[in-house]
C-alpha cells in the first residue's frame, strides 16, 4: 500500500514536471540577439552596480546561485556523513603534528589580515572583483592556517552550522521578499542608490555577504572534519 502511494505521488509529480518543462520549450530561439547586451545595459541603468559579473550571479541568475550554494551544502554534509563513522571508530587521533614556533607566530600575525581580506572581498563584491564565493574561501583559508599551526585550535561545529543555516534561510527569505514586492524571485526591491558607493545595488551586496558567510562556514567545517578524525 505504501509503495503504491509512493508510485502514484512520484508519477503525478513527474507528469506535472514533464508537462511544465515541455511547455517551457527548451532550445527554442526566444532571444534574437542573445542576452549579453541586456545584462550590460541593465546593470548600469537599473541596478547601479559596478561589477557586471556580480549583478549577473546574484540578480539575473540568482536562482542558479541558490542552487550552487545548495550543492556545496550537500557536498559538505555528505563528507561529514562519510567521515562520521570513521571518526568514532578510530579514536582520538588527529592527523596534525605540532608546528614550529616560527610557523605558529607567523600564523598568528597573518590570521587577522587573511580574515580581513576575505571580508573585504565579499563586502565589496558589487564594486570590485570577487564576491561571496571568493571571500568565503579566503576566510576558510585563514582558518585552515590556524588549524595547521595550532593542534588544539578549536572551531565550534554548532556555531558553524548556525551561521550556515541562518545565511541560507535569509537568502531564501530575501528571494521570497522579492516575490512579495516585485513579482519575481530575488527581485531587487530595495533602493539602488548611486553607483560606486558601498551602500548601493539594493539587495545584491546583502545577498553576497550572506553567501560569503555561508561558504566560509561550510568550508571551515569541511576542513575541520577532514583534519580531525574525532571531535
Amino acid at each position, binding site marked *: 500500500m505504501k509503495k503504491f502511494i509512493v508510485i502514484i505521488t512520484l508519477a503525478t509529480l513527474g507528469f506535472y514536471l514533464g508537462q511544465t518543462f515541455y511547455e517551457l520549450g527548451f532550445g527554442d530561439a526566444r532571444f534574437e540577439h542573445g542576452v549579453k547586451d541586456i545584462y550590460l545595459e541593465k546593470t548600469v541603468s537599473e541596478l547601479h552596480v559596478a561589477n557586471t559579473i556580480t549583478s549577473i550571479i546574484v540578480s539575473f541568475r540568482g536562482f542558479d546561485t541558490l542552487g550552487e550554494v545548495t550543492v556545496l551544502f550537500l557536498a559538505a554534509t555528505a563528507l561529514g556523513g562519510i567521515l562520521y563513522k570513521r571518526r568514532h571508530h578510530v579514536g582520538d587521533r588527529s592527523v596534525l603534528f605540532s608546528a614550529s614556533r616560527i610557523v605558529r607566530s607567523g600564523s598568528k600575525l597573518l590570521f587577522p589580515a587573511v580574515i580581513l581580506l576575505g571580508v573585504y572581498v565579499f563586502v565589496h563584491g558589487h564594486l570590485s572583483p570577487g564576491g561571496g564565493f571568493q571571500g568565503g*574561501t579566503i576566510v576558510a583559508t585563514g582558518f585552515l592556517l590556524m588549524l595547521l599551526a595550532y593542534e588544539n585550535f578549536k572551531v565550534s561545529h554548532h556555531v558553524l552550522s548556525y551561521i550556515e543555516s541562518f545565511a541560507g534561510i535569509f537568502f531564501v527569505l530575501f528571494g521570497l521578499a522579492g516575490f512579495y514586492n516585485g513579482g519575481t524571485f530575488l527581485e531587487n526591491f530595495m533602493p539602488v542608490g548611486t553607483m560606486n558607493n558601498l551602500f548601493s545595488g539594493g539587495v545584491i551586496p546583502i545577498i553576497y555577504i550572506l553567501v560569503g558567510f555561508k561558504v566560509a562556514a561550510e568550508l571551515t567545517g569541511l576542513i575541520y572534519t*577532514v583534519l580531525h578524525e574525532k571531535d
Partner: protein
Amino acid sequence: MTYLILIFFLLLLMLGAAIYAIVQKDLLYAVIATGVISLVLTALFYLLQAPDVALTEAAIGVALTTIIFIITIRNTVRHEDDYNKKDDLKSAVE
C-alpha cells in the same frame, strides 16, 4: 606582440609543470607542481581580464586543493614506488 609572447610563455610554464607532476615519483613534489599550474593559471586569468575567476582559482586551486592533497600524502605514502615495490616483492615470492 609582447602580450602574446607572455601568454605563450605562461602556457609553456603550465605545460612544463603538468608534465613534471606526471613524471615525478615523489608525490609531494608532484602536488607542489599542481599548485604551480594553478598559480600560473591565476596569472593567465588575470591577463585575460577575468579577475573574478582569478580570485577563485587563487583561493581554491593554490591554497585549499594543495593543502588537502598534502594532508592526504601525510596519511598515506609519499613515494609512488612504495606500492609497486610491495607488488614486486609479492610476485618475487610467488
